[in-house]
């Protein structure tokens, strides 16, 4: 079934057992993003030390795709420099816009390649990108206010 390419086991696992869910007390930047078409909401905290992302925590409500995707992102982007995170984010965005023509590089995207199937369901791409766009926003805020420190 076509649906199975969307709901990979890895995604449902992250949805049921999300990583880094629960907001940290301290953070370098906190952002709140919503998907106005379906009401999904997430709050995301990003902390950086010496230009490196030291923690990403989040909380939110939403569909399995949005929640799994932010769980995956919070695990994947931690301990990366902002430049590395940006490169991963760009690769993920390209994968989402690929309309099912790309599989994604597992060396770079790790669990996020499981979201490749989302690119065949145009209405769900926003769900998958919600957490990543929140991260991007938070990263900009950290780097404009503290220069990444």
């Amino acid at each position, binding site marked *: 079934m076509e649906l199975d390419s969307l709901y990979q086991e890895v995604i449902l696992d992250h949805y049921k057992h999300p990583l880094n869910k629960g907001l940290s007390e301290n953070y370098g930047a906190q952002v709140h993003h919503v998907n106005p078409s379906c*009401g999904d909401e997430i709050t995301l905290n990003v902390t950086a030390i010496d230009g490196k992302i030291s923690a990403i925590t989040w909380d939110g409500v939403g*569909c399995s795709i949005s929640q799994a995707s932010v769980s995956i992102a919070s695990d994947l982007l931690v301990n990366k420099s902002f430049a590395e995170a940006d490169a991963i984010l760009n690769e993920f965005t390209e994968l989402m816009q690929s309309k099912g023509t790309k599989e994604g590089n597992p060396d770079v995207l790790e669990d996020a390649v499981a979201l490749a199937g989302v690119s065949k369901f145009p209405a769900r791409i926003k*769900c998958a990108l919600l957490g990543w766009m929140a991260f991007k926003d938070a990263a900009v805020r950290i780097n404009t206010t503290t220069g990444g420190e």
Partner: protein
Amino acid sequence: MSFDVTKVRKDFPIFERTIRDAKKLVYLDSGATSQKPLSVIEAEGNFYKFTNAAVHRGAHQLAEEATDAYEGARLKVASFLGAKEEEIVFTKNATESLNLVAYAMGNAQPGSRFALTSKDQIVVTEMEHHANLIPWQQLAARTGAELKWFEVTPEGRLDLSAINSIITENTKVVALTHQSNVLGTINPLEAITARAHEVGAVVVLDACQSVPHMPIDVKKLNVDFLAFSGHKALGPTGVGVLWSSVFEELPPFLFGGSMIETVTMTSATWAPAPRKFEAGVPNMAQAVGLGAALDYLTDIGMQSIFDHEVELTGYLINGLLQIPELSIVGPRNTDARGGSVSFTVGHIHPHDLGQYLDSQGVAVRTGHHCAWPLTRKLGVPATTRASLYLYNDESDCDALFAAITGAQKYFA
């Protein structure tokens, strides 16, 4: 059942196609937009093929025929609503109709019954679609008027217990929906219109979810404005209707060609309604298509359509309530209720549920249904909505039940 759905479905070409690997199309999203019978598709096409010209101008046969077709559509809308021709204004959609009222009130001369100041109040309800909430929020912000609202009870009905303190001597306008697009609730209008008129306020009715589904006689509703969209009533997109019995007192909203009486370099006067509110070359083919849609509905009979939908809504609600962990948001019986049924299923997110239903050919709407304050009030992030129309039958409901059960296994 006397109502022949099989025969009705044959009039709708879209039901000849299949969905997701040759599955039957189970269309349960008419609350968002209805499907179109061939007669409507042809009426719109034939206008362009045979009659196309700018109405109300042009000294030629086509312009005459186009004007006749467009004004003929207005007559059909008027007759459908029990109204007069000059009480019908064509707009782009119901959203524009509602904005027209709000903006025109904002243009009213100080001292007129429509003019708002910081001493005045605007009343809405918690179950409004964004289209009948935000224009009033914005009018309140522009004029300093206070926005008040009726709350919704846990059963999904309007709480009218404080009606006299919500609608007061300072209320200038009461805007509410006839039937909630989320809950299906049909609101009792009598007490509200009586109180509104007692204090001199006008009543604006969002009838998007009622006009397509039940007999409507505007004379009996006792409202001052009524808005609906063509595309939810089997008609084309791009055409909506605003009915009013008080158009003459209301200043225009959009300015330009067609809506004037005289123009000088520094001033202008307005044509009488409805033309005062139809600036520019209008949506002629779409209005003609809407006329054909109302002909189609009239031929079948609005009372028959309403009775069919109430019976089917009962079947839908009863079947949904058999499903474990499913919870209906809104009335659980068919008293004063239309065929929009919203629900949640355990912890399956509506977007995931909708995706699974789609894989089974079942088309529903998921999310907050453009009524975000209402879903917040109900304490759910989102719901799934099945909405019925004249071309649905029990087999569509059965397909929905089976698909929901399938989704519960899939996401277990």
